[in-house]
């Protein structure tokens, strides 16, 4: 694999950029691996990468039913943050954020993680108190957080509505300066290239159709490209976790819901960081290409359709205009939807299952993208040691039965409300 650097690109300029090889191989599946990761999105690829890099497991395969990063990795709004209140989430997402900070160098692939900040707006004193509770928890957990007043918010994002006509005037906000955005596709590609270079077989167009389970332990999978043996199998197929888990006879506390995302036509710099509206469900940032990337609430019903509907689109328009009425004449260029694994407490599930050797990584709700490196890191640890790392210990599947929910919103067991 040729190393990426400004020099290699300059050199390529003199030779028509013809010296580049494949970023990752396109191997045929072998009959047996030490471990198989189902799902070639960010999480699956990160798991394989860290398994190979940190745990010495290189005889492993990533099985992807379509193209790499074609699920939620390529369908999200690219936000990275760790502004969580509850300890299980805070430690996990902060671990992930730290990995993000070094990811481009680690992978030798620029994933364009840009720490321009994530600002949650507050529109009442009660909301400020709720954010303060979260921000104070973040600080005590060693995570950066700043409480901004109205004037500080105005300086951070002057295009927001500070006029008298705002239905819910901005009171202040909670800023995580180290949060930001990354280039979603690049994360999948960089991890694939990294994992491949360590010997991992990345197999696209290979759908898992069944599990081989004997005596309560997993022995392999059936796929559209034949049976493959492995005694350690990790599922990282968020959006379709219930479907894949059902092949192993598991029922999970997860529902699949639609989340739509939108991008505008490209513009010169308009808004710097990520801003979330506190009086509705709306968040917005600007990509490096110039498009405003925005999204909001779930469409509100179980779905696997990967396409949303008009009521939510209209709703997003209302929310956007309420937050920043200058976007009225900016045009929305594309909208699409991803299928979210909505868990029953709004937090992810990363750990063991009742079947020996079968591991679960899912239930990401809206939080999957930012978790990518952290998720792979702790999942790799869990698979390699057959035990969770302390960082994902409380994000286990058994917590629902035991009543140890990690419910950041306090919304209860209604997946669509998280």
């Amino acid at each position, binding site marked *: 694999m040729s190393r990426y650097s*400004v020099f290699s*690109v300059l050199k390529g300029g003199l030779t028509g*950029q013809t010296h580049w*090889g494949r970023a990752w191989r*396109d191997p045929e599946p072998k009959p047996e691996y030490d471990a198989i990761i189902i799902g070639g999105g960010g999480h699956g690829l990160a798991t394989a990468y860290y398994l190979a890099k940190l745990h010495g497991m290189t005889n492993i395969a990533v099985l992807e039913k379509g193209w790499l990063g074609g699920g939620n990795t390529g369908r999200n709004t690219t936000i990275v943050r760790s502004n969580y209140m509850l*300890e299980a989430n805070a430690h996990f997402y902060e671990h992930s954020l730290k990995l993000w900070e070094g990811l481009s*160098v680690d992978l030798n*692939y*620029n994933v*364009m993680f*840009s*720490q321009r900040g994530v600002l949650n707006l507050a529109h009442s004193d*009660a909301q400020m108190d*709720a954010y*303060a*509770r979260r*921000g*104070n928890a973040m600080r*005590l957990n*060693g995570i950066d957080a700043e409480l901004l007043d109205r004037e500080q918010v105005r300086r951070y994002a002057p295009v927001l*509505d500070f006029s008298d*006509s705002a*239905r*819910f005037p901005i009171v202040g906000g909670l800023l995580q300066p180290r949060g930001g955005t990354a280039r979603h*596709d690049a994360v999948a590609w960089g991890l694939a290239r990294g994992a491949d270079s360590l010997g991992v077989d990345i197999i*696209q167009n290979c759908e898992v159709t069944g599990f081989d389970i004997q005596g309560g332990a997993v022995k392999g999978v059936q796929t559209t490209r034949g049976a493959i043996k492995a005694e350690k199998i990790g599922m990282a197929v968020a959006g379709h976790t219930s479907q894949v888990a059902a092949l192993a006879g598991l029922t999970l506390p997860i529902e699949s819901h639609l989340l739509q995302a939108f991008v*505008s*036509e*490209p*513009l*010169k*710099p*308009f808004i710097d960081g990520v801003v979330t509206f506190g*009086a*509705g469900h709306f968040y917005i940032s600007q990509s490096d*290409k*110039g498009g405003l990337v925005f999204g909001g609430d779930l469409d509100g019903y179980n779905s696997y359709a990967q*396409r949303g*509907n*008009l009521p939510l*689109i*209209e709703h997003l*328009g*209302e*929310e*956007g*205009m*309420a937050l920043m*009425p200058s*976007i*009225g*004449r900016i*045009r929305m*260029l594309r909208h699409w939807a991803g299928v979210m694994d909505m868990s029953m407490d709004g937090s992810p599930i990363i750990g063991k299952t009742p079947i020996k050797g079968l591991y679960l990584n899912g239930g990401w709700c809206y939080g999957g993208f930012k978790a990518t490196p952290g998720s792979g890191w702790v999942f790799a640890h869990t698979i390699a040691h057959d035990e969770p790392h302390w960082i994902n210990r409380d994000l286990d599947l058994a917590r629902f*039965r*035991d*009543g140890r*929910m990690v419910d950041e919103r*306090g919304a*209860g067991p209604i997946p669509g409300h998280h």
Partner: protein
Amino acid sequence: MSGNQPNRIPDFGRIGRDEPLRFTFDGKAYTGYKGDTLASALLANGVKLVGRSFKYHRPRGVFSAGVEEPNALVALREGARREPNTRATVAELFDGLVAESQNRSPNLKYDIQSLNQAIARFIPAGFYYKTFMGPFANTRLWMFFEKIIRKSAGMGTASGEADPDRYDRMHAHCDVLVIGGGAAGLSAALAAGEAGARVILVDETPRLGGRLNQDVYKIGDLSGGEWVEQTIAKLTALPTVKLLTRTTAFGYYDGNLIGAVERVSDHLPEMPVHLPRQRWWRFRAKQVILATGATEQPLVFGNNDRPGIMLAGAVRAYINEYGVLPGRRAVIFTNNDDAYRTALDVMNAGGAAVAVVDARKNPRSTLIDHTRGKGVTVLTGHAVVNTHGHFELQAVDVAPIDGDGAARRLDCDLLAISGGWQPNVHLSSQTGAKPVWNDKMNCFLPGTPKRPEASAGAAAGRFTLAAVLSDGHARGTQAAALTGHSLDREVKLPRVDAETPAPSEALWEAPDPATGHPKKFVDHQDDVSADDVRLAHREGYVSVEHLKRYTTLGMGTDQGKTSNITGLAIMAKLRGQPIPAVGTTTFRPPYTPIAIGAMGGTERGQHYKPRRRSPMHDWHQERGCEWIPAGLWDRPRHYPLTPNETLRQAYVRETKQTRQSVGICDVTTLGKIDIQGPDAAEFLNRVYTNGFAKLPVGKARYGLMLREDGQVYDDGTTSRLGENHYVMTTTTANAVAVMAKLEFYLQAVWPDLRVKVVSVTEQYAAIALAGPNSRKVMQKIVDIDLSDDAFPFMACGPCHAVTDAIRARLFRISFSGELAYEINVPSDYGRFVWDALMDAGAEFGIVPYGLEALGNMRIEKGHVAGAELDGRTTADDLGLGKMLSAQKPFVGKTLAQRPGLTAPTRKKLVGLVPVDGKTALPNGSQIIELADRDKPRPVKMIGNVSSNGFSPELNTPIALGLLEGGLAREGDTVLVAYPLKNLYIPATVRNPHFVDPEGKRLHG
């Protein structure tokens, strides 16, 4: 000639030559005509350079005559109405139009960033993935370069000012929705309309007719244009047909719902006060006909992006629709017959057709013969391999396509290109009908419909006029029949000359010239070249989606309308696979970009969300209260006596006066649910944790509700007004959700219970009166005996308020811990009764108190509220464990017993006071051990402060919080931590019942 419009051709076009319109582009003044687009007017004035490309800042001109335009993007209008990235090809000209070019500095001609062209070889697709990293494992280097990249990326500049215009929303139902008003759409609408179906026809342009306005056709004895006019007249005469122009159907959604945006006023110089700028339509149709036409595809060859290179069909459009000849000497480069029309039209308009360069080796058709017969040189088996010129095209190099034979240079100022036509399958594809590749026609055709829809005309791959008209008619007839409408007579379609074009042959990329390797652009806007596609292939980004995402192919404002197919085809060739094996591209909505303002419609500013007000709202306002939002409600927060009185001074004063004498508070926002039926008692017994079956008539009881998962859901008092009649109160925040939940239990889970529930929150004004003098005040306005014996604590009952005409409900309940009452009266009487109570209380110095004092008094009493009921607490956490009945099952009981919800380590309700007796313990604080203050983070959080206030009686700030160990730690000192403001306050743990812990005052 038209004076200062050198390229305007006399007697051509459908423009209003008697209505000249003035406009400016980059500050320079020009004149066009009514009916022009900005692009046609610029071309008429000989303006060729109109924009710069995204990455290399190459000079670009008008490329198309429609929505597919990748190059001619301008900022339209000024100030708050500035509209960036507007396609000049669809912007209608109006008098006084102001447009500015984009993505250049300092100006269009001298653009500093055009230097990027010089380093183009060093910045191939995806170069940024390989650079700007390290050397250290942080994001600094990237963020440094990112700033520069962000500035040079983007295209237009947004105004940043609030959009001053209005947007409207409309809903419409019809039998048949026809999308597209060209030959097929008009024909379909006429067939369906004459059959009696309710028809709506929408077209994105201002002028119905589609290509009939842009090409020279004969239909029967009429010209194409005359047929269009005649058909419009027939349609207009039909009562069930509605025609909407300037209306883009942008998306096809579930339930056969089509979203569309009508540009009502965008073509007018000023926005009329009575009209919106745009109107958002939801069309719900029984049958949909997609007569969306086709988009001409370009050809890819060296330097194929110079101003003066245009789609062949666009050249005909400018000639025939706008009366503009974009160049004097035209070369036509094609792989199909259709472009030959361009040669003929150019000649007809007075220009010269230098040559037709046809990539096909041996095409034969009457049209080709006819063109040759007009004296046009036809070079078959040839391709344009390079072009010359900078700000405008000057010549092209033409060479045999198989690579042997020298290039020859043809001088020209216009190159019309055609790679064939691609049906606009966007909308059908959005329904999940996967487009099907057709190898003979070299295009995708619509897939098998998944909805009640059918494609017609060019959208269905029918490219001759005869086929288009008969297809439209057939589809229209069929759609009408499917909705129960048919015509009882034969319709004779007009006679149209048969066309027998020679088949097109795929040519996705022309060969390189003999010397040099010029850039061949696939995606003009984003500067994606054929080499970029090859690089993506080389690096393994070979699936369509990887190709698009890696190179940004098709990601521009034109959404790849003229680049996706070519890019896909080049990749297929590189992979040695047929196109369908490589994939189809996803046609994501919207079809063309839509204004976010139109998405939002009318719900702007104060209309974003309704505002709920109590019947006493005006009184509070008159009294000068400060408001606080509570969900959608406005509630008085406090009533400052003077402008200088602070919030704390005010609520402490209100608290004191209430506890010493009497206070009055508007509690209308609490949810009120009327519950009636023989099984009402049983129902309440199931949904509340505590028993309600034995609650006597005339008594109220505090009730606690859990969620099914065992955590606290809501609380409130429920009163038994009659044997089978209760009224429940909920918290303001949960009123809606609790109501829905009760309905669910009754309808879906326990349908056997004979109980009905109805929300009466807005039917009653609710007024609380608290304080030792509250009885005396209340007694003055009600007609029942309020003595402690007659109406003891927790009594409730009907009465009259002020007059016999006002039937009221009185409750002796207390949130403040004082002797207190709550009276509910019909909303219309709320203000009247409030005034009466104020009068009655005047002699006692009655004080209105707001939400802040209300909260303060409940904190003094250790009562929990929203901040404690945060969805993560159990009854035991809140000190309410004794309310969980052991005698009966109730919702949530089973799962509340799980180990995680009963663990001894859970945080439990405590009271807190600052050790120094002075420093407030702010809401949102966390609690840590004193010893952890300076330890490295993370440190363990043992609790948090949920609510805080100030107790005048104890003369100290007080707070409620949740703390590990709960009251077992009574007397301990802990650290209330607010690191966001660097506040660390030692506080003493104590019982949360700060005031009157025995509750004597309630019974006073």
